[in-house]
Every structure is written in C-alpha cells, then in structure tokens.
C-alpha cells in the first residue's frame, strides 16, 4: 500500500505518469498527497514560534493554509483555462490536462515537503521573524519553479500531439501565478508573528499584493 504510493510519487516526479497508465493513481489519491504533503510543510512553517500548546492553533492554521492556497488558486484559474482551451480546439485533451494540473499541484507539495528540513534548521538557527518570512518565500519560490519543470515535462506528450498546448501551458502559468500571488497575500499570515494574537486572517482590511508592491517600489524611488 505505502510502497505502491511511494512508487507512484516517484513516477510523478519523474513525469512517468502517462506512460504507466495501468498503475496510474486515481485523482483522489493525488489530491490526498497534495493535502498530506501540504500539511507537512505547513506544520513546519507554522512552528516558528515554538511547538508549545499556546502555539498549537497557529501551527494548525499554517498547516491548513498550504493546501487551501493551492486548491483555491487551482479552482479559480480553471474556468477561464477551460474556456480558452475549448476555443483553441483542445477540449478532447482537457481531461488529461486536468490530471496533469492536479498532479503538478501534488508535485509542488512533495517538493515543498522535501524542503521542510531546511526550514526547520533555519528556524533553529535564526530568530528574526522578517528573515524567516523571506526564507519561506524563497522556499515557495524554489518549489514553484521546480514544479513548473514537472508541469512542462508532463505536458510534453500533449505538446507533441498538438503544439498549441505549448501556448496553453504558458497561459496557465500566467493565470495561476497572477491568482496565486494574490491568494498567498490574502491568506497571510503563514508563519504567525510571535507575540501577535493568532488569527486565521490578518485583522486589517484585505489589500492587493500588486498594489502593495507597486507602492513600495514607488516609495523607494521617491515619488
């Protein structure tokens, strides 16, 4: 059972999934990996303030936020991707496309979970909250770039079948990143500042990640 699952994850990372269809995992199983590995990284990420009973809530929040972030971004980006794929005449491949996209989400969490020891070591070494945030952002960035490689590899047979899939996979990355960045910003705090009250969302009103970035740059430039 576990061995089968580990084999399947190995296949996923090596992008062998569509070649070994007879032992291809079900969607449910892929989604389960996404939750399990997402939670794994989330628990480590939320343990910045220490693993004490009063920080338990924060760890729980951080853990759930990772799969929520990925699933929500995925679901929001899917309808437009579906319609545009249909317009491009790629509807018949869409079932396979969904499978690839879900698998990529799972791969992203596997990669993230493999980075969890680094994060733990970092937390043990440095106590600065701001730097911890940056380190996690860096880990997410690395994992996203690696997962993108998995996606491109999974897409390769489709692109061979119809070169239009190349444009589509790029479009997916644009939509997904656009929504994902704002989703990450909205779901703050992921780590939870020690000393601040533990909340699922930040108390202040929601703001826009892109507007924040632009304003920060503008302030730095001196407008």
């Amino acid at each position, binding site marked *: 059972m576990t061995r089968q699952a580990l084999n399947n994850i190995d296949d996923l990372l090596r992008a062998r999934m569509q070649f070994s269809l007879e032992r291809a995992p079900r969607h449910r199983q892929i989604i389960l990996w996404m939750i399990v590995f997402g939670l794994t990284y989330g628990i480590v990420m939320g343990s910045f303030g220490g693993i004490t009973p009063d920080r338990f809530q924060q760890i729980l929040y951080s853990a759930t936020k990772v799969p929520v972030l990925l699933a*929500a971004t995925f*679901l*929001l*980006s899917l*309808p*437009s991707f*579906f*319609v*545009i794929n*249909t*317009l491009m*005449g790629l*509807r018949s491949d869409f079932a396979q496309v969904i499978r690839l996209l879900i698998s990529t989400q799972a791969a992203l969490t596997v990669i993230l979970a493999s980075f969890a020891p680094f994060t733990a070591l970092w937390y043990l070494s440095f106590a600065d909250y701001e730097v911890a945030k940056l380190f996690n952002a860096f880990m997410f960035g690395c994992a996203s770039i690696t997962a993108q490689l998995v996606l491109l590899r999974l897409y390769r047979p489709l692109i061979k079948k119809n070169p239009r899939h190349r444009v589509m996979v790029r479009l997916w990355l644009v*939509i997904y990143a*656009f*929504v994902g960045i*704002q*989703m990450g*910003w*909205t779901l703050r705090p992921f780590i939870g500042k020690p000393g601040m009250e533990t909340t699922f969302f930040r108390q202040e*009103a*929601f*703001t*826009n990640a*892109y*507007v924040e970035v*632009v*304003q920060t740059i*503008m302030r730095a430039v001196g*407008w």
Partner: protein
Amino acid sequence: MIRWIKQLDGILRGDATRMSALKHGKIETPVGGVTVITILLGATYGICMGAYAMIRTGGASADAYWQMLASAVKLPLLFFLTLLITLPSLYVFNALVGSRLSVLSVIRLLISMLGVMLAVLASFGPIVVFFSVSTDSYPFMKLLNVVVAALAGFLGLAFLLRTLHRLVLAQIEVDRKGIAPASKIETSNDQDVPVELIEVDEDDNTSALDQVGYGTTEKARSVFRIWIIVFSLVGAQMSWVLRPFIGSPDMPFTWFRARESNFFLDVIDSIGKLFGM
C-alpha cells in the same frame, strides 16, 4: 436550455464553424438559444463585477445590491448595444462591396462572436470575484476588468476573422464547383453549369492593375477588418457611457453617471493612480 448550452459549446469547440458546416458559404446553425445563454453569461459576469461594491460596503446598504443588479443588467446590454450601433454601417458597407454574405449569416456570425466573448468573460468571473474580495484598490479593479474584457474581446474578434476566412474559402469552393449560391441550386443543372463558368466573358475588361481572384468575399473581409476596430472603440466608449459597473466605493449608487471624460482618459488616469502619481 441544455440544447442552447450545447449549441454555444458547439460554437466554442469550433463544431459550428468547421469547413464541413459552412459548405454552402453560409452559417446554418440557428442562434436564438445561444443569444439567451449569452445574455445569462453576461449577467453572471456583471454580478461578478458588481461584487466589489457589495464587499466594499460590507453588504450593509441596499445600494450594494442595486449595484450588482445594475451591473448584471448593463453588462449584456453593453455588448448588444455596441453591436446594434455598429451593425447598420456594417450592413451598408457589406452590401456596398457586393458581399454574398446574407444578412442572416452576418447576424448569426456576430451573435456567435458575442457568445465567444461573453463565455470567455464569464469564465474569468471567479478570478474577478476573488480580487474583489481581497482588494481595496478601486483603480486596480477597474484595470483588471479592462484587461479581462480586452482579452475576451480579442478572442471574440479573432473568432470572427477566422470564421470569415473559412466562409471565404467555402465560397471559393462553392464557386469552383459551380453549385451554390444556395438559391440557385434548384435552377441549375449539374452538368451544364461548369461549361457556363468556363465560357469567356465577352465584356471582360480587366485592367493591368486589377487583382484577379480578389472576389467580393475578400472585400467583405476587409470591411470586417475595419469594422472590428470600430467595434472595439465603440465598445470601450459604450462601457464608459453605461458606467458604473464596479461602483466606486466613495460614491452613492446611481444607474448612470453624468457625462464627463471618456474611457481612454480614465484608463490612463487609473494607471496613474495605481502608481501613486
């Protein structure tokens, strides 16, 4: 209803505009049901746009609900009014160049185009709602909607031009075989028609500069090329006339706003505001 959705799906998948479906050089699928679905899709996106007003006021006032309702009504209106305004001149020029596209074919083609546009637009609805929930910046929301609408418009107009291109090819095919224009099918005898076509035209006074083979359908295509520019400009300004769609958080709800400025100036203004200038 399900049948109508399937018809729209056929348009999106390209079944309705495949060469085999256009073999008489005209569009044969009816679009009555597609119109209804298109309006519903537009209303859906309108609600998504209006969600910003709802969320900014915390849903406390009746104004927020009015804004959503108004956007749901106005968004399909925007597209159909734009079509209505640009249709008469399109018809006149289409007839002037002697295009063989019938009025019915043109209308079906344009409704299909709106179907494509609004389906794409509605599919971005969830993303727009999410940004409405998580964004306090009004200029950002305006620009996001402009970008999404531009993308939908671009895909719809691309669909229009590609379908016209297929219609041209289909008509050339028809001419070559000497069968259609469909109305003549009954009167023509399969055998002697090609002979007529080969016969040398006594009055042929083609000059050295005339483009041979540049038929009326190609001219119709140039008419449509110019028309899509007109359509985009009219559509952009129409959205300004029908504003507010999103609902500024600082202003009370009104169905329409006073006459001032224009779409393009406001887009530039919004970009400036976003960058804090």
